[in-house]
Structure formats: structure tokens, C-alpha cells
């Protein structure tokens, strides 16, 4: 049995990006980057993603093969869920699964002991959350509000979910990590409780 973590970086208002804002909204710091590097260099997990994230990240990895972050991702075993991409995939150590992502992930959790982690992939993450196969939901809240320019709202289309806070940490005095165990609710709470 392995566990699955979904993680995102978000603005305080829940967006994954903002038009005109730099990567990490320009708010990254040494503590956070050391944390990211440590996580990326851990090759003992499997990275899960959808086709959109695959296209983006494999493109970056091809353009910047010497970047330590992308080199680490290239070395990490990866699984892409897509019915449009075609095997073989060019990015090393990447398996393509052309089928139901939820069933495949359930199967991987049964068979594999390595932890599973998503990279970006909002719609894949939404499907996995809805199906109740996510063990850990982690966000790092960046100190910006992007009411005017926010894009890629992370939580659009989500169900209602009760969260159990298991970790909380501040990086560089400004980035707030919040790690939760999610429980998807069938309907509004209170009904039938």
C-alpha cells in the first residue's frame, strides 16, 4: 500500500497563477527552495500528471536539461494519464496510461510501496480527490491576492471536503504550508449526521 499526496502552490485567493506575475509570484525564498529541492531529489516516489502538465513540463525539461530541478524530475519515475498522447513518450522514465486514472491509481496504491505525488494537473487532481483516493492534500499559500489577474483556480469544480490539518509550517517568514487529510463529503454536512 502506498499513499497519494496532491499538492499545489496557491495565492491566498486560491489561484495557481496570475497573468503578468513571475513564477512563485516572485515570493520564493531560500527556505522554501531548499524544501522544494529536497522533495525533487527524492527519487523514491512516483510523480503523477495529466497531459497538459506533461506537455508543459517535458518541454521545459527538454529545453533546460542541466537545470537541477528538471534533471531531478527527469530521473523520477513518472506516470502520465492521457488518451491523447501517444507512446512512446520522449521524457525519460515516463509511463503513459491510456485509461481510467482513478482505477489505475487505486491499482498502483495496492501494488506499489512508493509514495505517489501529483505535479500540477488540476483536473487529474480533482478526479482523484472526488474518487476519495487522495491521502494527503497540501497547499503552500503564497502571500499574494490576485483578484484581478488570477488564473487556474485550483478549487473550481471541487466537491465539499472536510479537512484534518496534519502539518503547518511557515517558510521564509511568508509562505504558509498547510497539509490536510481530506474526506470527501457525499452531500452537505449535517444531513444524516
Amino acid at each position, binding site marked *: 500500500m502506498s499513499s497519494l499526496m496532491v499538492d499545489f502552490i496557491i495565492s491566498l*485567493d486560491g489561484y495557481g497563477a496570475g497573468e503578468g506575475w513571475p513564477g512563485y509570484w516572485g515570493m520564493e525564498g531560500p527556505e522554501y527552495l531548499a524544501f522544494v529541492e529536497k522533495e525533487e531529489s527524492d527519487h523514491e516516489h512516483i510523480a503523477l500528471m495529466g497531459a497538459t502538465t506533461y506537455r508543459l513540463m517535458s518541454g521545459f525539461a527538454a529545453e533546460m536539461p542541466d537545470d537541477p530541478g528538471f534533471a531531478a524530475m527527469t530521473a523520477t519515475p513518472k506516470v502520465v494519464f492521457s488518451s491523447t498522447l501517444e507512446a512512446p513518450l520522449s521524457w525519460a522514465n515516463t509511463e503513459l496510461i491510456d485509461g481510467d486514472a482513478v482505477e489505475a491509481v487505486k491499482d498502483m496504491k495496492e501494488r506499489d510501496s512508493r509514495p505517489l505525488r501529483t505535479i500540477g494537473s488540476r483536473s487529474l487532481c480533482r478526479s482523484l480527490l472526488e474518487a476519495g483516493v487522495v491521502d494527503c492534500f497540501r497547499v503552500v499559500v503564497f502571500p*499574494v*491576492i490576485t483578484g484581478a489577474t488570477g488564473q487556474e483556480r485550483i478549487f473550481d*469544480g*471541487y466537491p465539499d*471536503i472536510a479537512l*484534518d*490539518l496534519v502539518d503547518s509550517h511557515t517558510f521564509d517568514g511568508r509562505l*504558509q504550508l498547510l497539509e490536510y487529510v*481530506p474526506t470527501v463529503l457525499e452531500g452537505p454536512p449535517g444531513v444524516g449526521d
Partner: protein
Amino acid sequence: MTATYTFDVFSSLDGYGSNTGDWGGYWGKQGPELLDHRLALYDAEQRMVLGANTFRAFAQMLASSTEESEVRDPWVTRMRNLPATVVSTTLEEPLDWPDATVVRGDAVDVVARLKEESDVPLRSHGSLSLNWALMAAGLVDRVQVTVFPVITGHTGLEPIFRGAADFDLELVESRTLDGHTQELIYRPTLH
């Protein structure tokens, strides 16, 4: 020396201020630390600044409440007894509120003047559109968000920053209450 203005707001992790569901007040996640902390916050001398919609919602909840209702929690009672400025073009005095004044006019002008004249800090709870306008005008010194441990993708209402501009935030304080609720206090600067 101008008075400090704090925009105090409750939120789900996905940024909604309320919901169509049966979550209840505080999304059912209140605990002793949160309630004590809220009371301590509102214990200090200060003036409330409320928008008309939030004021009406409070008044309505109080009117229909029972002794056990969350709207009768001690910090809410304390908040209700603080002097309040309600910015509204439609509400008429007298208000069913211990010490509230209705002020007509543009919220930005009203609050800019209050900040000059008030001897005590100013605090607003909820009042989203009022606070978006004040944030855009650079009048909000602190944004205090209490993040309750829920996602309300299905039933969420009133995104707390949907009508806000873009801001850089400086994290001033962060604390976990009852082991599951996160309070984040930021100083906003227009981006």
C-alpha cells in the same frame, strides 16, 4: 497618527466566506482556542466598520437566534457592543444595535476620515465589497483571514477576494487554533 484598519474575515480553504449547505457557523469547526482568541481580539477598545449587507445579516441572525445560537457567542456579543460605523445609503437610523451610526457617502471617503479622526483602531468583519474598495484605496492595514479546514467547491458562496485587486502581502502573524484552523494576518500593498 492614523488609526489602524483591519479587515477580518472567515474563509474556507478554497476562499469562500459562506455556503448554501448545512455547514453551520464556523463550518462546524469552532473550538475553545478559536472562541477564546476571538474574544481576546474583540475585547480591546475599537470601532467596527460594517457594510450594509453584513450589518443586515448580523441583525437578522441575532433577531432569529436562540441562546444556543453561534451568533450569541461571547465574542459576537462583544463585537455588537462596540461602537460601529455602518456605511450605507439605504439603512435608516435608529438601528437595532447598541451604538451604531449610519454614515452615507463613499466608503473610501468615510473610512479615510475615520482613520484620521478615530482614537481607537478600526476593525471590519465580513463586509466584502466595502473592504475590496478600501483595499484598492490602500486604506486596509491588515487582512486577517481565518482559514477553516474545509473545501466547499460544491456549496461555497461569496468568494472573499473575488472582487479584490492584486496585492502583495507581508505575513505578519500565523497561528493554528484548535489544531485545525489557521489564522493568517497580512499587511497588503497594491501590486
